[in-house]
């Protein structure tokens, strides 16, 4: 029985398309919009935390996750698939990099590792592709630059200056094309991401229904210990108060 379905479910159609991947991209196009913006001194990842009912507790659900202290990741598409990829990415960061070189992987290497996992799910037997597109933002110590990548279910990945995925990604990208420039500061990037989200969110924007993460300067107070040469994590989630402050000045 098991071997009956052990062929790859992702197979070429006569016209040369992999329809399973097209379906996955369709699922993503219905997902909640996520914005990613790179600036000279940090990356912003921002998304709406949608609650289908006001009975749902939203304060401890999170859509943007830490992968390494300097890399954050978020998604549009299927939440459960995202959590699987978060687990795999965190583990790969250690087994394939930190336990060998005693340092965390650069963003590009991390993205390649995640893309490899997603590609393998399009060519393996008995499994379906991941129903998510990812935005991976982080800091690269070797070039001293911030980076932002998108990873698709096919395993393709793209470096961006600013981008959006999900339901209103097309209009959001048009908006970002107008607002992004080379000397954007981190606070400007947060501002632009809120403006972009405002267009795609139905109700009012509040600190409680938004998830915003910045990867910027090392946060020594988030380290948990003192007196070593270890840098603090650059990944920082904005509190609802911090988001509300910025919404007030919108």
């Amino acid at each position, binding site marked *: 029985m098991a071997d009956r379905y052990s062929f790859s479910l992702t197979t070429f159609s006569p016209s040369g398309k992999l329809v399973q991947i097209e379906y996955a991209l369709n699922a993503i196009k219905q997902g909640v919009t996520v914005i990613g913006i790179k600036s000279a001194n940090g990356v912003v990842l921002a998304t709406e935390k949608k609650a289908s009912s006001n009975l749902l507790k939203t304060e401890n659900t999170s859509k943007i996750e830490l992968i390494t202290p300097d890399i954050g990741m978020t998604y549009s598409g299927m939440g459960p698939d995202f959590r699987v990829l978060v687990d795999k990415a965190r583990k790969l960061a250690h087994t394939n990099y930190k*336990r*060998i*070189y*005693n*340092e965390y992987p*650069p963003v590009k*290497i991390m993205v390649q590792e995640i893309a490899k996992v997603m590609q393998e799910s399009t060519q393996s037997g008995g499994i379906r592709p991941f129903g998510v597109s990812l935005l991976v933002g982080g800091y690269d110590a*070797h070039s001293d630059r911030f980076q932002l990548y998108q990873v698709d279910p096919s395993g393709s990945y793209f470096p961006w200056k600013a981008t959006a995925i999900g339901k209103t990604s097309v209009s959001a990208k048009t908006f970002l094309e107008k607002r992004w420039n080379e000397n954007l500061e981190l606070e400007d990037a947060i501002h632009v991401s809120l403006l972009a989200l405002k267009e795609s969110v139905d109700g009012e924007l509040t600190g409680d229904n938004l998830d915003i993460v910045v990867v910027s300067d090392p946060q020594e107070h988030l380290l948990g210990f003192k007196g070593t040469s270890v840098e603090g994590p650059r990944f920082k989630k904005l509190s609802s108060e911090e988001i509300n402050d910025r919404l007030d000045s919108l």
Partner: protein
Amino acid sequence: MSDPFSLNGGSAVAMVGKDCVAIASDLRLGNQSLGLSNNFEKIFQFGDKTFLGLTGLATDVITLSEVFRFKHNLYKLREERDIEPKTLANLVSSTLYEKRFGPYFVSPLVAGLDPKSNVPFICGFDSIGCIDFAKDFIVGGTASDQLYGLCESLYEPSLEPEDLFETISQVLLNAVDRDALSGWGAVVYIVTKDKIIRRVLKTRQD
């Protein structure tokens, strides 16, 4: 007598100077007291300014130099840049620890300058990868006791490249002269931010 670390003989030493490092080894390969080669280098280059010294059992020296050449080539392809000395040190450490219960019989040294900041870095390892971070000098091989003694008496901090060359050469030459399993020529590398100096030294041939 059947200690694999001293079967073939050989010694190496590394030192930190002012904005430079030096690493040197002898050239002998032997089978116990029988000398076989006076052209067996034990220092290997990785990228522009990073070096690995490998003393101990010659078969493991060759195997590991090839293993690290392979790993370094893959690293360069993946990362599109040279490896940093401290990253190489951690790679050496994890590679050796993989063979925790059947180790390579070597005492490696790493010496180099950071590719970007040119900060000197040296360190040594035991055969299962425990890193010995050193500020001044590090030794390895069958003449390690003699090398320690000479380093303790001749080394001084912040030497200029040419003075560092003189110091490391005297340390190595006089140490291997008091070790029957080391000697038969020596090679010295001086690593500075804009050039690598390699010098082959003539020594006593007995």
